């Protein structure tokens, strides 16, 4: 029996093979995520026993618990999961395209552009427009900046290296613009902007879930649909072209998926760091680098980190509700260092 399971349609619109070991790892990750969700629902300023959590989820819980779980905790948890998965998958895609381990959604300016737009919105509009426009503004900022990077890097075709260098420059330009906006605005607005930039899922409601879910789901599925192209991209332009891939077209559509995912995540939750860069690497250590297993593993790991980070952020320093962005690295980095150390001879 082969180690791999091949998933392929007759006329291949998608095709990948799954390493069986990687599948078990992914299964374990999913179970871990579900356990994480249940604990995350139970813990907080009101403790809810596991049995009651399950009851509420199945629809016959006590009404006091029901309010806490359904109105406060669950939307926040769902948003964390979507944000984490989006950022991680976005990072995994960019690492394949740019073929640089330091690539993350920051690199082509998505997150920095979104941040600049959001900070401009906070500081300049002075509350004349509803704060509900913010995710859209941030998303547009991210899309605009990423397109700018892409266009500036295009010269008779694309080179990943040029894309990366120009991305770094435009990103730091957007960073400078953000600082500039904050300096040019009153202190109170600047503090609000700073809180947003750290990244938080505080105050997420079902309304956010409903806005974000179709978008995230659509692009995550699209990303899974492109797995074979990701595998080809990672081999280098020449090889990818050699096996018959329309390389520029695919690169553009993959970048678009990555930008759409990261832009929406940043729009809802602000600049949550580390997940987009590190979750794909952790996944690589766990399941290897074939994207059929890597992409889901990245997504699940990313979701788990933001989930746990938010759990830590709202329970550890009660009554302070610290932005989740502070904890993504505090939780993720030690785990990553452990993986790095464990696989030191690999």
């Amino acid at each position, binding site marked *: 029996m082969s180690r791999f399971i091949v998933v392929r349609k007759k006329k291949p619109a998608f095709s990948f093979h799954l390493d069986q070991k990687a599948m078990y790892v992914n299964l374990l990750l999913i179970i871990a995520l579900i356990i994480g969700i249940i604990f995350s629902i139970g813990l907080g300023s009101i403790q809810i026993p596991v049995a009651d959590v399950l009851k509420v989820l199945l629809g016959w819980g006590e009404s006091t618990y029901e309010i806490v779980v359904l109105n406060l905790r669950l939307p926040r948890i769902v948003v964390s999961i979507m944000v984490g998965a989006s950022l991680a998958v976005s990072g995994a895609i960019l690492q394949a395209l740019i073929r*640089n381990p330091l690539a993350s959604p920051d690199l082509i300016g998505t997150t920095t552009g979104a941040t600049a737009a959001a900070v401009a919105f906070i500081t300049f509009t002075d509350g004349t427009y509803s704060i509900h426009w913010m995710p859209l503004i941030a998303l547009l900022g991210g899309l605009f900046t990423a397109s700018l990077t892409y266009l500036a890097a295009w010269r008779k075709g694309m080179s990943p290296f040029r894309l990366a*260098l120009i991305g*770094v420059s435009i990103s730091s*330009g957007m960073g400078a613009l953000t*600082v500039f906006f904050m300096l040019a605005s009153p202190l109170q607005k600047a503090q609000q902007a700073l809180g947003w930039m*750290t990244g938080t899922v505080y105050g997420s409601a079902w309304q956010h879930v409903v806005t974000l879910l179709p978008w995230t789901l659509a692009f995550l599925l699209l990303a899974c649909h492109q797995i074979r192209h990701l595998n080809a991209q990672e081999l280098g332009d020449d090889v990818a072209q050699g096996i018959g891939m329309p390389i520029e077209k695919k690169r553009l559509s993959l970048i678009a998926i990555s930008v759409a995912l990261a832009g929406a995540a940043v729009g809802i939750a602000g600049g949550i760091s580390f997940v987009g860069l590190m979750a794909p690497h952790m996944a690589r250590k766990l399941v290897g680098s074939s994207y059929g297993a890597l992409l889901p593993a990245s997504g699940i790991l990313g979701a788990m980190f933001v989930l746990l980070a938010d759990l830590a952020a709202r329970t550890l320093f009660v009554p302070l509700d610290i932005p989740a962005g*502070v904890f993504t690295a505090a939780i993720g980095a030690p785990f990553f260092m452990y993986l*790095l150390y464990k696989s*030191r001879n690999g």
Partner: protein
Amino acid sequence: MDSLLSNRLQKSVVLLVAMILLVIAMISSVLFGLHNFDLSTVVTAYTSFDGGNDHLIIKHTRVPRAITAAVVGSSLAVAGVLLQSLTRNPLADSSIMGVNAGAAFTIVLALYLFGSVFSFTDMMWIGFLGAGVTAVLVYLLGSAGRGGMIPIKLMLSGAAVAAFTSSLTSLLMLVDSKSMEDAMYWLMGSVSGRDLKHAAMITPYLLCGWVVAWLMARSLNLMALGDDVAISMGQKTVWVKATVIFVAVLLSGGSVALAGPIGFVGIIIPHMCRFIIGIDHRWLIIYSAVLGALFLVTADLLSRFLLMPEEVPVGVATAVVGVPFVISLVRRRAYE
């Protein structure tokens, strides 16, 4: 690899021009700002100091600032060259060794534990120490296991350690906001408000760094061919790598202690220099040192005029000067 300048004469002449520009930029940095002076005032500030406002500003604000900017700019650029060739990654700069995050963390931790009892000099040494310790940690983690220091392991452990320490930094700052105003001043990254004695304390270390970096140029050229070739040519790669990392940490740790975290210079200046003179490290290191200094001095000068009478952080000005320039440079070449 074709570059703008091909022969030694051209390279030397352009280097000379760049040096002259650097001197002009430093003099302008002393002369222009919210108050403008003329050259004779500057001279008399040193020949016959009268204790007046003008002379005080020149001696205690402008001159230290110009010198700090030049020293920090060239150190960051040289550290960038070293780390980019060590890791063979064009996106590497001093932040991949975790020095910025480490220095920031130790300073904030010290303020958290002991309150604001530190002078700027104390903070500088605490930052230097933190940068060093973090870099050692990154190096150990990056070179554990078979095969020793492999670039990818080093970069990943650097990114992880940096992310971890900076998340601890923001946690401390959010939990205890009172003493953090002191830290903010340093965390913003700036070349102003430093006294000449601070620059004088750090500069000897940086000077050693520059000299050793330049002496390493041949080894770096060899290392660029890949580990296998370098070993077969008789290079002791482990020692070369360790020295390169040590020098890079010395340079970037010293800069971050003196001026706080300043980004962009370390990544971009080495690339600009490669466009101009190619990949020979013997030239690359000198060019990076001169152009890095020129770049940061110019950016600092500009930072005074962007939001006059307020000053913007020098990081904003580096982006304003650098981004359009880099994009036009990068677009001029075909890759791969």
